[in-house]
Structure formats: C-alpha cells, structure tokens
C-alpha cells in the first residue's frame, strides 16, 4: 500500500515490489480502517470481496458468521465497534490467508468479545496452520496467544524473544539499594528501578541473576507487562 523508500521486503520469497498481488492474496488484514463501505450491507460487502480470492471458503465464512451471530442484512455503519471487528476478522479469515496481520484488533472491545475473538483466532491458527502478526498494547492478550514477541519502542526494536523462553528465563531481582550500585553489575541489567528503600532489576536469566546478586536478593519471574515497563523505563539508577 505504501511505496518503498529503500531496501526490499520479501514474504515467502516473493518481493513486494514485483509480486505485490500474489503476496496480498496470501494476507488477511484486520485493522483500522479496513475500508469497507459504511453504507453497504454485510452480505454485499462479502459479495464484493470474495471473488478476489481463489481460496475463499464459503463454509468457513458461514461457520464464523454463525459463531459470532453476525446479521448479514445489517449495514456496516450500523454495527458496533465489536461487531465491526468481528466482521473484519471473519472476512480476513475466510479466504484462508497464510499470514494474518492484526493491528490492534481488540482495542476498545469489552473483555467478553475480546476473549471470543482470541479464541477464534487461536482455533483458526491451529486448524489452518497460519502465521499471525499481531500488534497490541494489551499485554494479557499476548500472554494468551503469542509464541514470539517483538517489543518496539519509538520505532526501535527493544526486545525480540520467544514468549515462553522470555517468561521462564528472564528474572526480576529485588533487594536492598546497595546491591544495585556496582557499575559492573548494572551493565548486566536490562532495566532497573530504584527507590530510597531498595531496588528492582530485570536480568536476562535466573542463573546470571544468582551469580550477580547471590543469596541477599529475592528472585521472581516477570510477566510481559513487567518486562515492557523495565525496558521502557531505561536505566533509572
């Protein structure tokens, strides 16, 4: 959709410059906005879009319509935010894409609809063997669904790791202030927070943490939100 400034993007060995339409056939997208005509009924939107995809699966479409209880006679503009996202997701999944790009698909949704969408996504991921590229600010969604995490801050990649590895290996160290004052030790910390009473630091592994801080500190496993907060907070010593 955007022209390249420099370099090249390849998906499945295909270049976005020369094989854009082949790549787009393999991609399903849910984001804001999708560009569906506001004044059209959902059944007409489906009629407009389905012929573009050779892989369109009508049975799958009907299955998801039934699952989400979507009324196809409704106009797109008459749908609530949650219903719009559900319909967008149905349209993105029904042509059986190999790559699904979801840009904040659950933003602004209530927890029930959000959970329902995540469940459908996870089932689809297992049944159809697809890759899902999912951007979100809701870290609890990531803990439920993702395998691999990339954390981007101000346009720069701050962290990329497998989720399970990150949650099992990364370690939060808590202890008295003096433990965190050594400059050599500070170099090993991914993030640090200090108060007048003590400090907390994020370290890459449990083993490394124990080597650095010994028995004087306490150790615990972080969740994704804590990792993000440590990385976002720079080194506040």
């Amino acid at each position, binding site marked *: 959709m*955007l022209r390249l400034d420099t370099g090249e993007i390849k998906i499945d060995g295909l270049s976005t410059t020369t094989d854009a339409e082949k790549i787009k056939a393999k991609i399903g997208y849910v984001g804001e*906005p999708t560009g569906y005509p*506001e004044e059209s009924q959902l059944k*007409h939107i489906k009629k*407009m879009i389905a012929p*573009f995809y050779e892989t369109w699966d009508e049975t799958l479409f009907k299955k998801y319509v039934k699952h989400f209880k979507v009324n196809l006679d409704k106009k797109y503009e008459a749908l609530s935010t949650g219903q719009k996202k559900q319909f967008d997701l149905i349209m993105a999944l029904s042509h059986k894409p190999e790559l699904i790009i979801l840009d904040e698909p659950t933003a602004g949704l209530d927890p029930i609809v959000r959970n329902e969408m995540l469940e459908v996504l996870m089932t689809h991921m297992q049944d159809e063997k697809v890759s899902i590229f999912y951007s979100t600010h809701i870290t609890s969604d990531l803990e439920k669904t993702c395998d691999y995490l990339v954390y981007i801050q101000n346009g720069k990649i701050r962290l990329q790791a497998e989720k399970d590895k990150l949650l099992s290996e990364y370690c939060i160290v808590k202890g008295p202030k003096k433990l965190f004052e050594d400059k050599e030790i500070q170099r090993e910390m991914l993030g640090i927070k200090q108060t007048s009473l003590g400090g907390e630091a994020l370290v890459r592994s449990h083993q490394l943490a124990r080597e650095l801080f010994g028995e004087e500190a306490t150790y615990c496993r972080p969740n994704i939100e804590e990792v993000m907060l440590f990385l976002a907070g720079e080194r506040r010593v």
Partner: protein
Amino acid sequence: MIGQLIKKDFIHLTCSLRSVLISWILICLCLAMVSVGTSVTMPAFGAYMLFYSMKAYEERSKGYLLTASLPVKRKEVCKVQYLEALIFLIISMPCSALGLLLQNSIKGTKILPTAMMLLVMFGIGLIYVSIIIPCVAYFGTHKSRYAVIIFYGFVVGVASVDIVQNALRRVAAIGRVGNVGVFIGIACLSFLLSYEISLWIFKNKDFK
C-alpha cells in the same frame, strides 16, 4: 481481476448507492429535456456524476485502502477507473437521446438525435472524464473540484489567445464531418494521455 474490480464497484453502486442512481436518472432526463445544448453535454455530466459520487463515497469509507489491499495490480485499478467512466458515459447517452426525443414531442423542436450528434456527445464526455479522473486520483474528490475549476480557467485563458483562435478557425474551415473527426481524434488522444498520467499517479501513490 479487472472484471472483479468492475463487478465490485457495480455491486456497490446498484446495491448500496441506489439514491445516487435514481438522482442520476432523474437529472439526466431533466437536463436532456431542457435544450439541445444541455442534451449534448448531458452524457459528460452523467458520467461525471456517477464517477464522482462513487469516488466520494469510497473516500468517505477510505475504500481506496480496501482496493489497495486486494490482490490486484495498481495498473488494473487505474484501468478500471477509465473503463467505468466509459461505461457511465455510454449508458448516459441513451438518456440524452431520450431527452431529445421528448423535447421533440413536447416542444416540437424537430431536432432528433443523429449519429453525428451522438459522436459529439461522446467526444465531449471523453474529454470531460479525461480531466476529472487524474484530478480525483491525485487530489481526492474534495480538492479535485477546485483543480478542475482552475483547469477550466486555464483552458479559457488559452482559448482566448490569438494564435489558438486562428488555429481553431482553420479547423472549423475543414467542414462539419471533418470537424467532428478532428474533435473525436482530440478526445481520444486526451483520453489516452489522461490514462498515462493517471497510471503514473497510481504507480507512485501511497495508499494511507
């Protein structure tokens, strides 16, 4: 994919934009019945009205993003603009002819649609859509209206220059059939040139 793109737009037009279609039919018939002059220029206006309305609705929903995300080439998207404008122009012509016939029976104008008149209608329409399509592609529907007004101001300015007027007089001296031939030739050339300009715009455009 050109067929699918045209089908997509026509489903949108016939199923969701029925009010646009009804206004188009009424305006076309009414305009065509006012005078011979409005009958001749009506197909151009009809094609413009349908094309512009569709694009305006598309812009409101950011439908261009949807089109850009579909597995189609930019060249195909560009071609479809021109094919649709041609279709709109062709379907506007019978309305205009019907308006002339009604004028004849109601006002007794005794001017019936001839092949020559239809050719002139087609030529005017072709030039009109040749101007509007690249403007809409580059500026969007809102700003393109101002761009078209500026363009017409430029054309009027150029037409008032002596050299251009002398050239027009020479063309007029060719005779009626020759004039229409030259006019249709110019219209086709402008259509092709417009397509090339739009293609360049589409190939370099960021859809965001």
